[in-house]
């Protein structure tokens, strides 16, 4: 459309009046109709199977309970220091995320190097990419359910689950960083007669650190949110207690857990964004 307009404008020897320019405006109604039609079909198709079967008999009381719990949280639980209180569980969630992210980011390094096309031959690189894709596709909850058979329920299961889950996304982002490596630096180090170790120390590591750390912090952010849900399958953290309270309908306790959760995520997100912008723009 644009090109056509351009050619029309070039052939004209006088300036277009507003009315003429308006008549030549790009018209995309065909595209819009197609988009709307596709959307309508999809919604109609998917809406046919999602039935609103009314509230459950206790539905309205659950809704009221959740709202009242959020506005009247259990303060003794919220500020207690025992093993079942909110602060301890929040700290445990953070601990799970720290260990999971650290182990994951270390485990991801070999995967990332093996899957980079500028380091490894293409067939091997693609093989490792498929492995990474497989790791990424298995939902973290499923990983947790499988690891529980090994470690038993508890925070340790959360740690190992997150270490494995993180590999997928972290190595995917590491690969981009590795493939963007400036090889000229390595060549000049070669020309200076550097040993392979020196080449890695002065040519590779400085180029990768910033993006690796940024990726790791970003993943920490995600892992923290993930760690809160892992508790649902008894893999430690705040999720287990929240789930138990929801199922036994102790709304005041639910409220205090939800407040703790929100506070945790907001604070961590704030700091992680701050550190990452600093890493991206230099000191």
């Amino acid at each position, binding site marked *: 459309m644009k090109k056509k307009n351009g050619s029309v404008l070039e052939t004209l020897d006088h300036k277009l009046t507003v009315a003429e320019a308006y008549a030549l405006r790009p018209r995309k109604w065909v595209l819009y109709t197609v988009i709307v039609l596709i959307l309508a079909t999809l919604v109609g198709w998917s809406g046919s199977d999602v039935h609103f079967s009314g509230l459950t008999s206790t539905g309205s009381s659950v809704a009221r309970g959740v709202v009242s719990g959020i506005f009247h949280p259990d303060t003794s639980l919220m500020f207690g220091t025992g093993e079942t209180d909110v602060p301890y569980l929040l700290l445990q969630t953070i601990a799970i995320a720290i260990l999971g992210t650290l182990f994951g980011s270390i485990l991801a390094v070999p995967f990332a190097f093996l899957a980079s096309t500028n380091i490894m031959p293409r067939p091997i690189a693609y093989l490792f990419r498929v492995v990474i894709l497989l790791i990424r596709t298995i939902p973290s909850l*499923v990983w947790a359910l499988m690891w529980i058979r090994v470690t038993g329920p508890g925070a340790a299961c959360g740690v*190992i689950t997150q270490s494995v889950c993180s590999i997928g996304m972290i190595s995917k982002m590491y690969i981009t960083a590795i493939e963007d490596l400036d090889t000229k630096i390595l060549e000049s180090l070669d020309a200076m007669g550097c040993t392979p170790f020196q080449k890695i120390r002065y040519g590779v590591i400085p180029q990768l650190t910033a993006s690796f750390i940024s990726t790791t912090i970003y993943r920490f952010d995600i892992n923290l949110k993930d760690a809160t*849900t892992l508790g649902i399958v008894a893999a430690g953290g705040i999720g287990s207690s929240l789930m138990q309270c*929801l199922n036994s309908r102790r709304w005041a306790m639910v409220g205090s857990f939800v407040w703790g*959760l929100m506070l945790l995520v907001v604070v961590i997100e704030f700091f992680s964004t701050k550190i990452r912008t600093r890493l991206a723009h230099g000191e």
Partner: protein
Amino acid sequence: MANIFTYNHLLIAELVVLAVALVLTLRKPEVITTKSGNTVSRPRSPMGVICTLLVLAITWALHMTGFQISVIIQKGEKIVAILEKLFRPKWEFFPKVIAPLVDTIKMSILGTVIGCAAALPIAVLASSNIDHNKFVVSLLRVILGLIRTLPTLIIALVCALIFSLGTFAGTVAISIFTFGIVAKMLYESIETIDMGPFEAMEALGANKFQAFWSAGVPQILPVYLSHCLYCFEMNVRASAILGYVGAGGLGITINERIGWRDYNGLGMVLLTLLVVVVSIEFLSEFLRKKLS
């Protein structure tokens, strides 16, 4: 009973190490005198403090979670056995995967559409360049922020308790979650649009809605659609596990397979999920490239 302050005696040793590292790092910068007599100061590297903090964090976290690498090494063959079964999917199970899979896709389509549609007006109200009412803007942003902090599974669990088990609860959960994310991404994009045409329309006497409709919408529509597609991609992944808390879809099947320790069947479910997720990702990436 363990307490938030319970910690082993390692802490004291670590604090000493940390103090030493701090002192080493915060020393005066090293001063180097060159042959010409000029002096150059070289600041100390902060690596000492960072490493100590890291070690401190790791030992604290290990203590907090009770994670032991020896358990993994001793019982490692169990996970290997499970993974081995996963990679030999039971093909006969495929027909039973289709119905829940279609449910999952339907749930995520409907949830995404509802969430994205609801996000549009709220995002406009929450962008500070269109809406000059500071109170409304910050209120909406706080609400959106709070919605985003809630994990999808928790929302789904509450929805399942309210709306009975099934796909409706899942759809509501996905809508809420999508709404939070798309509205945030959208108001960030709206704030970067070129305000020239908008102001020109207002100067010509158009009201805010007319001005936004003709000057803002053409600018944000491609971005909006691409956000929606991105969210749809995420939702397909997320909705696959919503069934675990009773919100319908593939999660129920997954939970059932794991409960029966039928890992070959689970492998089939995951394989189907992989194919669907990858093809949706390809499609959405293709469409998003077209949009930009």
